[in-house]
């Protein structure tokens, strides 16, 4: 361990530790690389490639993949209007990621805030909050999303809203359960005896203990939300053209399945790779963020099954 006083060096030391733990699990390493690529595509792709992704080329309609005569952009083939698939997928990464990230962040912030209140205070509010969570849980979520989106205009903001609301109970319940346990621990008792304010106890002493669990769940949930958004877009009530997401691309390729399989295949593969990476990373986090299990990674990554 690097031991210096400057906070910068400490920060760097922490980053090095994370990277070392990541390196110990080759699957997680691969997952992190895939996710990094997807995020880069989502951030930079639309800036460079949005022209390329919307340029129609009717002579290249449904052009097959792995042919280089039209240029590198057409390596994955082209869609029904001759638009090259590779840049389209890169551009679509932005909407796909934005919707999932928006929904996960909203539901995590709202859910965990409510969970902290419900777990920490014994007031009537905590009962109200828990019942509210039960109510959301008892709704058939996908059907509800279908109805609400059909009625409220399927815009990006509405999709984020609907998905976020249906995911709130997960964070709410987890946070509350953890807070109920952490609240009774010695260091919280000690802080209270010393006269620490409630706000400081919650944010300074309880939240950091709960955070790793929340982040692990959020990673897993990101995959779930992405699949849900893809399903909605696939059904035609999610993102609307000319905006694109991977789910929408799969559905746009569906009529051409028999003669141009690549239209649906590549975006679907992109979804699988991303969700798979999220799942792998979440599995790694569960170990890396847990002080009791971290040795599995520090031992050199042999026994991290």
């Amino acid at each position, binding site marked *: 361990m690097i031991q210096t006083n400057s906070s910068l060096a400490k920060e760097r030391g922490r980053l090095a530790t994370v990277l070392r733990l990541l390196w110990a699990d080759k699957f997680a390493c691969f997952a992190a690389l895939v996710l990094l690529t997807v995020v880069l595509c989502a951030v930079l792709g639309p800036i460079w490639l949005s022209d390329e992704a919307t340029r129609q080329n009717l002579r290249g309609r449904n052009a097959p993949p792995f042919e280089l005569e039209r240029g590198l952009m057409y390596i994955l083939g082209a869609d029904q209007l001759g638009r090259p698939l590779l840049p389209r997928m890169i551009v679509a990464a932005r909407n796909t990621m934005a919707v999932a990230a928006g929904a996960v962040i909203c539901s995590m912030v709202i859910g965990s805030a409510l969970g902290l209140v419900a777990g920490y205070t014994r007031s009537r509010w905590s009962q109200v909050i828990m*019942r509210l969570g*039960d*109510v959301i849980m*008892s*709704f*058939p*979520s*996908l*059907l*509800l999303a*279908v*109805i*609400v989106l*059909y*009625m*409220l205009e399927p815009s990006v903001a509405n999709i984020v809203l609907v998905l976020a609301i249906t995911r709130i109970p997960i964070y709410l319940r987890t946070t509350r359960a953890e807070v109920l346990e952490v609240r009774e621990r010695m260091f919280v008792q000690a802080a209270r005896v010393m006269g620490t304010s409630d706000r400081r106890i919650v944010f300074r002493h309880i939240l950091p203990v709960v955070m790793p669990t929340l982040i692990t769940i959020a990673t897993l949930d990101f*995959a779930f939300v992405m*699949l849900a958004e*893809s*399903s909605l877009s*696939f*059904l035609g009530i999610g993102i609307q053209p000319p905006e694109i997401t991977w*789910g929408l691309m*799969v*559905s746009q390729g*569906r009529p051409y*399945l*028999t003669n141009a*399989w690549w239209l*649906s*295949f590549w975006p*679907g593969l992109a*979804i*699988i790779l991303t*969700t*798979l990476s*999220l*799942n*792998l990373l979440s*599995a790694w986090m569960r170990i890396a963020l847990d002080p009791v299990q971290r040795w599995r990674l520090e031992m050199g990554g042999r*026994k991290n*099954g």
Partner: protein
Amino acid sequence: MKRFIGKRAIASAISLVGLVILVFFLSRLTGDPTDLYLPIDATQEMRDRFRELHGLNDPLIVQFGHYVADLARLDFVESIRQARPAMDVVLEGFRWTLTLAVITMTLVTVAAIVIGSLAAFNVGGVFDRITSFFSLIGASAPDFWIAIVGIVIFSVQLRWLPTSGTGTMWHWILPISVLFIRPFGLILQVVRGAMITALSSAYVKTAKAKGVPPRPIIFVHALRNAMLPVITVIGDQAAGILNGAVVVETIFGFPGIGKQMIDAILQRDFAVILAAIMVSAIAIFLMNLLIDLAYALLDPRIRY
């Protein structure tokens, strides 16, 4: 026990009422069914008669009053599109979905428990690694994508299975296999995790020390204690199929409740939307109740 069920039922009933009110008003905001069901050149007179017939002329709040009055007599109003009671339409669809869910979840549960337990018995072994990898892929795959890839391979290329519809046994194979994959991946991982914990407990070590062979240790000693989290996920997934097989049902033209619901929404068939919501909410309520009862059955320490 009875008090527990009663409390649960009241909470669910309250949320159901809220849901019905919400959907009733939201659905009427989407537009007038008259425009969908009558031809463009229909006269004003015909339109008025259609609206009169389906009670669309009254103000929204009056329409809602009528609907509640009908509900009180257990009349779920007629479907505009099919001209028969909405509840009949929905229950017919629900029967299909229920069959699909029961078959799929039975297969998933048996397969996931057996394979997950065996994987947990030898953590880090070849079998464990292979199953972990495939269960992760299964849990990550979007079902609509698997469905259409499945259709391309098995229906279009190999011509082994029909692409959509119902009728013969063969029609069920693709929908069930597609619905199987994700819950299988998820439940397998939970079984494996819970079994690893259970197998490292003291009573399993005692059993091993006594010389109990591996199979009874896995399936008798450890499994029962590992079942609680597994049951939670099974219930979650089953509820998911009961109300969320929308995508798979749409792709395979399967006349289940999800497809009925989508059709009803697109056709502004309000009575069917509301009836479908009520049926699926009640189904989920019963499902959750069943899971809680299963907890108590498995773990005598849990009482309600």
